[in-house]
């Protein structure tokens, strides 16, 4: 689906794109995002009117409970949702473009598995670590997972081919997940881990946002900068090289971007992996195969999905929180199936 006509290379390949639809999605999506953020701040265990939300944002008064709830609980949560959603979606888009595999997402680089293993180790051996420390540890785990995949992938003679990375990623992922499962079963910390993963963005504080936001925003911008090169890579390494791309450099940049995005997002909210897989598909379906449009649209759509899913997580069964992964699956799976059945046969 993502690798059309190799044969037309190397004269500039013709791409099926819909810039008009894409601009529409971007403008409409961003306005919808602003609205959904406001909505997300206003609904919850105690409903707060939208006008109060506006007041709290623009004329904050520390003496009012509602304003405090908004500033300390609701706002960080909504913003974290938007950031993390964009991060997962763009990481998935970059991965799918670089590996030319429609099944690729950040979990294929060992990122989710590495973070999961590190969390299992922390829960088993260092119980009671602070939230921030857990976050750093799991980011470290993500980096180790990625390092393993790339280290092993590049040991081979032919260097890093997309197929080899994908296979190395699947194997390293399986290995790390198995180790994490083993630790979880042996030390009986599985259910704690499940709670952590299901927790989503419920307890996000400003501190966490201050830690992850600069990295995520920087990586999103960087992804936009290299999006043209990713389009070329998605047509095949030969095409990209023929058109004057330094493919090695672009791939290295892409990997760092994916690590920053997915690593930060996973360590902040756990693995909500499905978002990273489906959003790029949806974006590609809507705007065509040019990553200059796919990447920004994925970011906007990913944010929207995550913010809405988080609203849903609070509304389904109040005051209890429903795991956000479930909500995303409930929204995402039918829509994804609909898209698939609309796709022409392949």
């Amino acid at each position, binding site marked *: *689906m993502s690798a059309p006509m190799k044969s037309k290379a190397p004269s500039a390949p013709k791409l099926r794109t819909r810039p008009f639809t894409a601009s529409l999605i971007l403008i409409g999506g961003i306005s919808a995002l602003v609205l959904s953020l406001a909505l997300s701040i206003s609904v919850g265990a105690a409903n707060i009117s939208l006008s109060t939300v506006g007041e709290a944002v623009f004329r904050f008064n520390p003496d009012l409970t509602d304003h405090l709830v908004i500033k300390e609980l609701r706002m960080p949560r909504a913003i974290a949702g938007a950031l993390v959603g964009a991060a997962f979606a763009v990481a998935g888009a970059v991965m799918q473009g670089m590996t030319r*595999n*429609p*099944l690729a997402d950040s979990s294929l680089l060992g990122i989710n598995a590495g973070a999961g293993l590190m969390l299992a180790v922390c829960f088993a051996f260092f119980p009671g670590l602070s939230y921030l420390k857990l976050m750093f540890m799991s980011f470290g785990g993500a980096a180790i997972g990625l390092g393993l995949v790339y280290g*092993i*992938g590049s*040991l*081979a*003679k*032919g260097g890093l081919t997309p*197929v*080899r990375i*994908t*296979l*190395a990623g*699947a*194997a*390293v992922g*399986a*290995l790390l*997940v*198995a*180790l994490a*499962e*083993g630790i*979880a*079963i*042996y030390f*009986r910390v*599985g*259910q704690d881990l*499940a*709670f952590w*993963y*299901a927790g989503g963005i419920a307890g996000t504080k400003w501190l966490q946002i201050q830690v992850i936001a600069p990295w995520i925003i920087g990586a999103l911008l960087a992804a936009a900068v290299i999006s043209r090169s990713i389009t070329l890579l998605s047509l095949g390494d030969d095409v990209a090289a023929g058109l004057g791309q330094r493919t090695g450099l672009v791939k290295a940049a892409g990997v760092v971007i994916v690590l920053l995005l997915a690593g930060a997002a996973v360590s902040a909210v756990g693995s909500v*992996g*499905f978002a990273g*897989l*489906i959003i790029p*598909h949806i974006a590609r379906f809507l705007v065509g195969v040019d990553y200059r449009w796919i990447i920004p649209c994925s970011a906007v759509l990913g944010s929207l999905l995550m913010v809405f899913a988080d609203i849903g997580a609070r509304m389904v069964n109040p005051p209890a929180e*429903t*795991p956000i*992964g*479930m909500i*995303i*699956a*409930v929204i*995402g*799976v039918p829509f*994804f*199936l609909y898209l*698939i*059945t609309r*796709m022409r*046969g*392949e």
Partner: protein
Amino acid sequence: MSTLYVTATEQRRKKRAYIVIAALSSLIIISFMISMNTGYIRLSPLDVLKTLFGGGTEKQELILFDFRLPRIVISVLIGAGFAVSGAIIQGLSRNPLADPGLLGINAGASLAVVLFISFYPATERGSIFLMPFLALLGAALTALLIFAFSYKRSHGLMPTRMILVGIAFAAGISATIQILQIRLDPNQFQFIAVWMAGNIWGTNWKFVLALLPWLLFILPFVFYKAKVLDALNLGDQLAAGLGAQVNKERAWLLAAAVGLAGSCVAVGGGIGFVGLIAPHVARRLVGPQHQALLPASALTGGLLVLVADTLGRWIIQPDGIPTGIVVAVIGAPYFLYLLSRSK
């Protein structure tokens, strides 16, 4: 001239395939002997041989024939079943990441088991025997749904679409499992965690009898269809040009893959990783032709699970480690080693 060359390479490849298959078979036999010796109660190799030929004490016979032998047979069968299932799916979808898990089989089976555990405690003796059937039912239902979504009258079953649908279903189902799991009490949670990690718990001849007919029926059928798989692997148009009835053959082969993986997951839990890596390992050993690849995959898978199960019993006694975990821990590094050596 060129035909001569082709037959020469063909012959070399055949010879290589025979050597690999013979080597894998002997390795299975060696692991079989070692596995017979492994466990909480030690038996010397001589005792094992004696007992096998009918000269052991009653206790030795009980241990070997009623506990260890069925477990060993089941390990090999499960490994072979998953591996061939994976080889079929990789061949049909032409995607190296495809494995039986992508058909939603593991997820469906897990959901059935988790649902059951949520409502009935697992410790009761009867329920243990009920679970393989529930797992098979869950797996079959999920596979049917996935088929229904990836079938179009004009195109038949579409492999790419099937993989995407499978991923969507697997994601939806695991989210549901996640929710159910959080509500379980810690003991039930532990049971489910072990089951999902892939544990061979059918250590009983009944399970062998439940599993064997499926494999005896499906494996020969798949081996018989090896040439068709080769043709389908070239792409639909070429396959049709070669005279294969693409849609019909594909549907049959997929059904075979589901049957194999479904019956294996029922007895062995989520050891699906075998289905991903065994065909890859076999492909590096004997090449891409399915006539050699399918038996080599079956043997590789059987060997891997047998070794993993033996190690799992040996490392932590008497509880053992879930076999699926050991499979990944020994299978993944070997797979990565092969990957780094390939051109």
